[in-house]
């Protein structure tokens, strides 16, 4: 279709680095350098390796090179009335497909539409030995070999340079509406359950501390029925779209300011999201909590863990605090072993996911 294939050049670059023992820092558009632990290494820019390779709407599959801007992919899908179910964050159109998959972060639709990993069908990958390999494929069901494609989703480039990804895509629904609802932040789970169990096509739920915003997407009559049944005020369509984009891309006022720490807390259903701090934004029907301010990191993590959740320091580095919560001893060992199996010389994004002491 369009774009250029740089995979052989990228492979040679990694193979050379492996020989020299030179650390590489993989960058897409670099939009997320704030996320994860900092990496020292020569930049490996993959943006030139771009272009949609194939897209067949009736197969529900799109394959593109990792450097393809995510907006280019969304445009191609929109033209066919389809979309990415996981609503990936976009920042001024800069984010790349590889960055989205490597970061594994999804937007507001995630609990109802699926995670990034749920839609990754296959990928091509250069491991730390400079070998270009293909895992998974372009079909919906595939259990041949271990699921290396999903293993690399969210691995932040620590196991390989992703060069190509095949994604499952889905039809965009015919209708959508966003309702502003009077509700307490502790009601997110119960309201969400009530609506889902009544067949309402819920596809987003935010509580900003003041008000609850619920998005419904589905067939025209299902959306109309939701509006008729639920006590709330419908937002203007343009304002509604702008609202969800501001959440997805973190341009909402809550996220302003890069210096102050931003915590992301992943919570089991029906947790009380209001106990973690004063300034919060609740997403995912209460299962993703964004927190500003200066909570004591160890207490915060312990509290989240006790509930069956976890707290990530998403932005704003704090001395002596890793971006990600620690793993138990068994899984720390498995992580080290897996890292070695993919990247024996420790050259790919060293320390990005876990500090060198733990993984290498």
């Amino acid at each position, binding site marked *: 279709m369009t774009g250029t294939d740089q995979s052989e050049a990228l492979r040679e670059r990694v193979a050379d680095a492996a020989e020299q023992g030179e650390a590489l820092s993989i960058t897409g558009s670099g939009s997320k350098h704030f996320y994860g632990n900092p990496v020292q290494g020569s930049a490996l820019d993959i943006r030139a390796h771009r272009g949609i390779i194939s897209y067949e709407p009736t197969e529900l599959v799109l394959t593109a090179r990792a450097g393809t801007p995510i907006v280019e992919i969304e445009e191609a899908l929109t033209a066919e009335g389809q979309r990415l179910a996981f609503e990936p964050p976009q920042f001024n159109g800069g984010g790349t497909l590889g960055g989205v998959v490597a970061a594994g972060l999804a937007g507001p639709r995630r609990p109802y539409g699926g995670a990034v990993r*749920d839609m990754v069908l296959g990928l091509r990958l250069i491991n730390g030995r400079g070998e270009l390999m293909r895992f998974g494929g372009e079909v919906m069901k595939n259990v041949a*070999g271990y699921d290396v494609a999903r293993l690399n989703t969210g691995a932040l480039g620590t196991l390989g340079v992703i060069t190509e990804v095949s994604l499952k895509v889905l039809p965009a629904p015919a209708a959508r509406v966003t309702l502003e609802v009077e509700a307490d932040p502790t009601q997110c789970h119960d309201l969400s359950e009530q609506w889902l169990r009544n067949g309402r096509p819920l596809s987003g739920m935010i509580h900003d501390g003041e008000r609850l915003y619920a998005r419904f997407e589905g067939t025209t009559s299902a959306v109309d029925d939701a509006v008729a049944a639920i006590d709330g005020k419908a937002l203007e369509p343009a304002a509604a779209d702008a609202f969800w984009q501001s959440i997805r891309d973190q341009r909402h006022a809550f996220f302003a300011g890069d210096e102050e720490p931003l915590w992301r807390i992943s919570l*089991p259903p029906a947790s009380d999201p209001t106990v973690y701090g004063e300034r919060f934004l609740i997403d995912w029907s209460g299962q993703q909590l964004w927190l500003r301010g200066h909570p004591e990191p160890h207490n915060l993590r312990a509290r989240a863990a006790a509930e069956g959740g976890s707290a990530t320091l998403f932005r704003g580095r704090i001395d002596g605090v890793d971006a990600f919560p620690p793993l138990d001893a068994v899984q720390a060992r498995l992580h080290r072993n*897996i890292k070695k199996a993919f990247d024996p010389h420790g050259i790919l994004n060293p320390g990005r996911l876990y500090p060198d002491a733990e993984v290498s």
Partner: protein
Amino acid sequence: MPAHALFRDEDLRFDVDVDPLIDALRQVLPEEGLIVHEAGLRAYECDGLAPYKQLPRLVVVPETIEQVQTVLRLCHEAGVPVVTRGSGTSLSGGSLPHPQGVLLAMGKFNRIREIDHHRRIARVEPGVRNLAITEAAAPYGLYYAPDPSSQIACSIGGNVGENAGGVHCLKYGLTVHNVLAVKVITMEGELTTIGSESLDSPGLDLLALMHGSEGMLGVIVEVTVKLLPNPLTKQVLMASFADVESGGHAVAGLIARGIIPGGLEMMDGAAIQAAEDFVQAGYDTDAAAILICELDGSEAEVADQLKAVDECLRDHGATRIQVAADDEEKARFWAGRKAAFPAVGRISPDYYCMDGTIPRKQLAYVLRRISEISAAEALETVNVFHAGDGNLHPLILFDGNQPGQLEAAERVGSAILQLCVEVGGTVTGEHGVGVEKINEMCVQFAGAEIEQFHGIKAAFDEKGLLNPGKAIPTLNRCAEFGRLHVHNGELPHPELERL
């Protein structure tokens, strides 16, 4: 028995005196938890791939997590292989015993620990049957979505082991999309919880890696799954087509209109006839193919979709469309499809079920090639097909009592799997590689990829004691199979477009 040896020399490197191990195991297991006599071992000699039979050295039936930990620790120390078995319904030999090892039967782990209806989460032991979860959730109006046809028998631990699918997975996902966490014991005997009740967990996605890992990475001792609310309403319709190709186009047409049905299954003429003779489901035996389509959701949604589906099927040349009038008829429409395997069992002394997945647009070509391949071996093939997601189940009919027929069926199966790879698909959609498709893995993957798989295996199980000889071929095996040189981009028929 199959034509080729089940295990290769390199899979049989565990020649250990197991008597000391048996003595040590007696100390920790209940009397009936240790089986060493041939009569007792026989019950475990095969899984759902019945022509492949192998006695283990011993069978261990633990009852507690601590016992599993001790068994694994002792086997690790002694260097004895361990094959974990759930219900033994694998169709690929995944739970086929190892001749030098322990068969670890998880059947006593059959308790549902918790149904948390408020949070829509179930926590169960790995030996719990798939359907038992839905039955336990039913009083709360909830269910567990993945529904393999074997759901009355297969265990949730085995479902994770194979990443099982069902007729509803186009819309609701495979096992990997519905499991939140697993408690796993490593080969060293250590316990860890992978995943959580939250939507994501720190670190690498080991939870995804456990799915479809065929008991090669650890032993699962608890599974936490998410439950879904029962759809408010369902509608089932059945459409007849004069040829398979139009049926395939109709499926593409539905998806082009933005409809993802809850279930979308296709059967070819031979399968329709066999099912109709068996369960009298009211199938159109004049049709060359039928599509069974289930729509679910709110009343409003289903009404909208039913109209669109009906229109689309007519546009694509459906010769007859029947909409189920009531629940009884819905069940009847499904009954034929769900009983397709046993129905075929009635028309042929034996059948061999394959499991490739292909890009849907290749359907007509692939079905034509399948009938040519079968004809060349003088065998017949019946096709049922998860039409929505391209997962084929060709059933190769043969008579194991006729000399050479099993071998012929195996050759047909292997050729079908290679055909699936050739058109851009995979050798297994949901049944797993096991011992059955291990040679064909050499066709789908290049040497570096296979080595990477072995690297992952070693990261979990350095000594290679968990389920040796399964799922991932050694490079020696591939060299012998003679296919290692054939990998991506160098496949036969380069003129074929691949996605």
